[in-house]
């Protein structure tokens, strides 16, 4: 195949940059779409995921219990003050309580392990309640 597009070298370079930007832009748009779809899906999980319901107990005792769990299981990745280390900053999370609980239980592929075997419903709610205090 010979010259397909009759472009000057400079125009060819510009076309290449536009192509690269379009590819990365499409990837970004696709990623955002997947994130939004995932967040939406987390609000309408069928059984048995319903047991990861949002915490209804935001008492000081529940938050204190959640903090203990956090320091034991989460702090080595997210930092003792939850501002992030290997894992991300957990302050000001703009997601639902159910999304947080689901992430704790299911983990994130290749990023964060599942804690479903360590935490029951009560522990998950306590930890979620504590994370909610991180404003």
């Amino acid at each position, binding site marked *: 195949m010979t010259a397909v597009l009759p472009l000057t070298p400079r125009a060819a370079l510009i076309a290449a940059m536009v192509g690269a930007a379009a590819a990365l832009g499409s990837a970004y748009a696709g990623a955002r779409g997947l994130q939004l779809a995932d967040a939406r899906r987390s609000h309408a999980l069928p059984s048995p995921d319903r047991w990861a319901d949002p915490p209804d107990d935001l008492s000081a005792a529940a938050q204190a219990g959640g903090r203990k769990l956090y320091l034991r299981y989460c702090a080595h990745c997210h930092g003792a003050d939850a501002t992030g280390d290997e894992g991300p900053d957990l302050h000001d999370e703009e997601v639902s309580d159910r999304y947080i609980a689901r992430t704790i239980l299911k983990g994130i592929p290749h*990023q964060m392990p599942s804690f479903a075997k360590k935490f029951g419903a009560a522990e998950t709610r306590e930890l979620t309640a504590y994370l909610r205090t991180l404003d």
Partner: protein
Amino acid sequence: MTTTDPEPFWTHAHGALVHFPIALVCAAGVLEAAGFALRSRDCMRSLREAAHWTMLLGAAGSVPAVASGLFLTRGRMWGHGALRLHHLFVWPSFGLVVGLAVWRTALGARASDGNRAGYLAVLAVAIVLITFAGYWGGVLLSRP
């Protein structure tokens, strides 16, 4: 597999899809270099055409490879730890591969030796980036 547990399928799909663009882009580099080195020989034209087509196929193959990776990470473009390192090389590689395919198509057979040398140099950079992306991808797969 359920809709809320996408990892098993997309892990396998991503593993299956990434090898095509890696191999094709590397092959395009070898063919392009051979076409550049042997530009006084009769085979030069065939080598350049083969390089062009392998580059186009590599760029086309990179799209499903990237898409499957995004499905696997549920749309997270960076992540943390080894995944971040993987993505640190993936995104420049992806942009370069698509850009190089457009550049090569636009230049075509009329390109000067200087343009071809520049293209070859950027292609070499892309191959190095792809190699590192593949290395960190392998680290991710070897984790329990």
